[in-house]
């Protein structure tokens, strides 16, 4: 890319938060039509830097130069859009009650008469824009009716609707299926051809090696390295990210012994929700990690939310340790030793406005409850123990909203370990989390089932994760179980084949 024009430059950017140097004198450049991966562990400063670029944060010092012009010190996100900077966050920012085309042209709608929106023209323009991306989305549909992958395409179309020079994508594939990810990559390649610079943030290295030209690695608020993707290996990048030689435990690790499956800890019989899930039977054995795979829409999450009593079921009998139990809500589930760790830590997994310690004890007040009064001493002790063993960066009174994604997830896991359940269901336990924390979390799940009489379920869209942690793997599709793999049989090609062929 050396021959092409330098489009965007950060010059000596710094940003402090109370007690933290989030960005420390960072400089980097991006060229026209280049796809650059911005890498780093959670808390490395990538998101902060991108929020500075988008105008959401005001930088303490340094310059941003876009197209040979220095951007003003303070500007708003809507100014950033006008400069040609678009950011696509993990949590998409579309308005779900409006149609696709209305979202794409929000605030700059085509108008006919003085101030009347020309919907006909808008429809046509939206159609063109989406066609350019090869996205087959009806512009007149309400956004809330679209699957996540299509929403993302709308978001990209929206970015392109104004004259856009730089698109930042923050973890765009975390909620996408493998197929949809591939479609997204095609779109990114198209953007490149249109000379748009893409800054791509992801924790999935295989993706970065598929589409990126260059990788910039950050750690603790500074740039620690820059590599041309063609000239380096994945291990080199991981080393840069963690600042140490890759340990063996970061790579997929199998249980050393085969699990002896003799005692069932949970049996679900004839589970149906009356809509998508029809007559599902499954068992979980003591000591195993059961992986659940499948495409989006396979109703994996729905099945387990129903088993845990969070969402209503139409029918289904649940046996825990050979005893039929009636579970109507999460409270009943926890009483019966069944815990569900939500896939959306921001929506229903955590109380973001509350402290780490309050979140941890939320699942189980028993140990800290003295005749109705909370023993804060104990709360603090319990949470400090978790902070230490799970290596959470923060202290017990830190508000969860101020933690990075990986640390939030660890708080969520602490909460469920504190619940003292026998069976824990981890729904997307490492969504949006860096390699190092990912390995730590996998180890935590392993350690959990090592205890006498425990079992875990891991629901994941990340095939590598399922391959790494599962002792047994179930593949779901459209509310049914379509495949089962035991210990030795779990390997990538056959699993992928099952998912992609039986899936649709």
């Amino acid at each position, binding site marked *: 890319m050396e021959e092409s024009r330098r489009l965007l430059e950060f010059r000596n950017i710094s940003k402090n938060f109370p007690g933290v140097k989030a960005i420390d004198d960072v400089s980097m450049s991006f060229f026209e039509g280049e796809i650059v991966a911005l890498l780093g562990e959670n808390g490395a400063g990538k998101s902060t830097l991108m929020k500075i670029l988008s105008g959401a944060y005001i930088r303490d010092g340094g310059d941003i130069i876009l197209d040979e012009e220095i951007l003003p010190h303070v500007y708003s996100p809507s100014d950033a859009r006008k400069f040609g900077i678009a950011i696509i966050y993990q949590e998409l920012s579309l308005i779900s009650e409006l149609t696709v085309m209305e979202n794409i042209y929000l605030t700059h709608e085509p108008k006919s008469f003085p101030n009347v929106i020309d919907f006909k023209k808008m429809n046509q323009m939206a159609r063109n824009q989406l066609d350019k991306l090869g996205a087959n989305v009806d512009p007149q549909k309400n956004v809330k009716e679209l699957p996540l992958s299509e929403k993302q395409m709308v978001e990209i179309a929206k970015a392109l609707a104004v004259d856009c020079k730089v698109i930042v994508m923050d973890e765009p594939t975390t909620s996408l299926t493998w197929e949809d990810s591939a479609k997204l990559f095609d779109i990114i390649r198209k953007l490149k051809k249109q000379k748009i610079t893409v800054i791509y943030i992801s924790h999935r290295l295989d993706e970065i090696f598929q589409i990126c030209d260059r990788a910039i690695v950050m750690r603790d608020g500074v740039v620690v390295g820059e590599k041309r993707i063609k000239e380096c290996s994945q291990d080199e990048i991981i080393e840069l990210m963690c600042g140490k030689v890759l340990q063996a435990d970061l790579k997929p690790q199998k249980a050393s012994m085969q699990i002896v499956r003799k005692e069932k800890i949970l049996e679900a019989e004839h589970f149906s929700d009356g809509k998508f899930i029809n007559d599902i039977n499954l068992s979980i054995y003591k000591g195993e990690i059961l992986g659940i795979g499948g495409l989006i829409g396979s109703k994996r999450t729905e099945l387990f939310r129903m088993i845990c009593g969070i969402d209503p079921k139409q029918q289904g009998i649940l046996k825990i340790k050979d005893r039929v139990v009636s579970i109507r809500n999460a*409270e009943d589930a926890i009483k019966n030793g069944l815990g569900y760790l939500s896939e959306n830590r921001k929506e*229903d997994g955590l109380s973001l406005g509350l402290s780490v310690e*309050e979140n941890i004890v939320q699942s189980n*007040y028993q140990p800290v409850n003295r005749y109705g009064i909370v023993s*804060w001493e104990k709360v603090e002790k319990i949470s400090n123990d978790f902070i230490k063993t799970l290596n959470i960066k923060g202290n017990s009174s830190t508000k969860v909203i101020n933690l990075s994604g990986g640390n939030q997830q660890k708080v969520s896991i602490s*909460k469920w370990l504190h619940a003292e359940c026998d069976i824990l269901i981890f729904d997307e336990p490492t969504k949006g989390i860096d390699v190092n924390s990912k390995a730590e979390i996998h180890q935590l799940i392993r350690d959990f089932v090592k205890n006498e009489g425990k079992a875990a379920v891991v629901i994941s869209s990340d095939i590598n994760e399922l391959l790494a942690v599962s002792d047994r793997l179930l593949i779901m599709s459209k509310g049914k179980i379509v495949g089962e793999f035991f210990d030795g049989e779990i390997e990538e090609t056959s699993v992928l084949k099952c998912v992609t062929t039986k899936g649709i």
Partner: protein
Amino acid sequence: MPHNNKIAIKKVLSGNFGTVLVLIFLMCIMTILTPKFFTVSNLTNILIQSATNAIIAVGMTFVIVSGNTDISVGAILAMSSCVGAQVMKSSGSIPLGLFASILAGCALGLFNGTLIAFLEFPPFIVTLSTMWLFRGLAYLFTEGRAIVGLPESMMNFANGKFVLPYIVWVMLIIYISCHFLLQKTVFGRKVVAVGDSKESARLSGINVKKITFIVFVMSGFFSAISGIVYMSRLNSGQPIAGQSYEMYAIAASVIGGASLTKGGIGNILGTLIGAIFIAVLQNGLIILNVSTYWQQVAMGIVVLLAIGLDKLRKRMS
């Protein structure tokens, strides 16, 4: 533990620092403007005047912290105090009257709570409707007239004092115990958890419906207590009592740091400061002989200023 307590106290103090500052500022202005303001008798008066609102605002704070609103509190106050007054009058027994009053308040709160927690009706609409409903019932029950002729000891209670007036003691005891209830008990922490994120609380095994139900019953309970204070001060049961008290209670909670748009925030001591703040303002304006029209204007402006200053302070830190 002492260390921990210190942190907790510090947290509450720093959280309310801005409001206290504005309150002191307001009191300074009043003192400069009129010599009649900063006297023992007037300050005691302010505390008595703040009591009815302050006591309702306790229940309101629990409701707001849990992520809900209750605008029927003024009507509950009227209805429960009329019931209490009637029972007191016809039986001649004060305890029986007080009991009836509290029972009525809790029952009305229970009605709100059932609709909101178990039938999942939106809290604003439910309490808007019951505000009219309860108020109308209070008028029907009394045929629109005040219930007079209560036992004399009611009046004695309102005027009696032990260092501080009894009414102020009642208020302080409620505040101290409710501060403890919200900050230190499992129930209180569950209220905060429900307010911060209903779904997260539900998935963590907290019985969200039960908590929501209880805070509305509490709101009814404190409205009734406030009604008793009101009844003792006027020595009668008034169906027009507590008109627009819901707004003062909400203002007290919000000045004290609670947020109407986001649950999980707010603390009881802040609400006390808020209630006193409102009473100081009303009292000062009356002493200054400001017309009632201007009083309302001033009220609106000062509440906006108080909240604006607090926002500014939070943004600066």
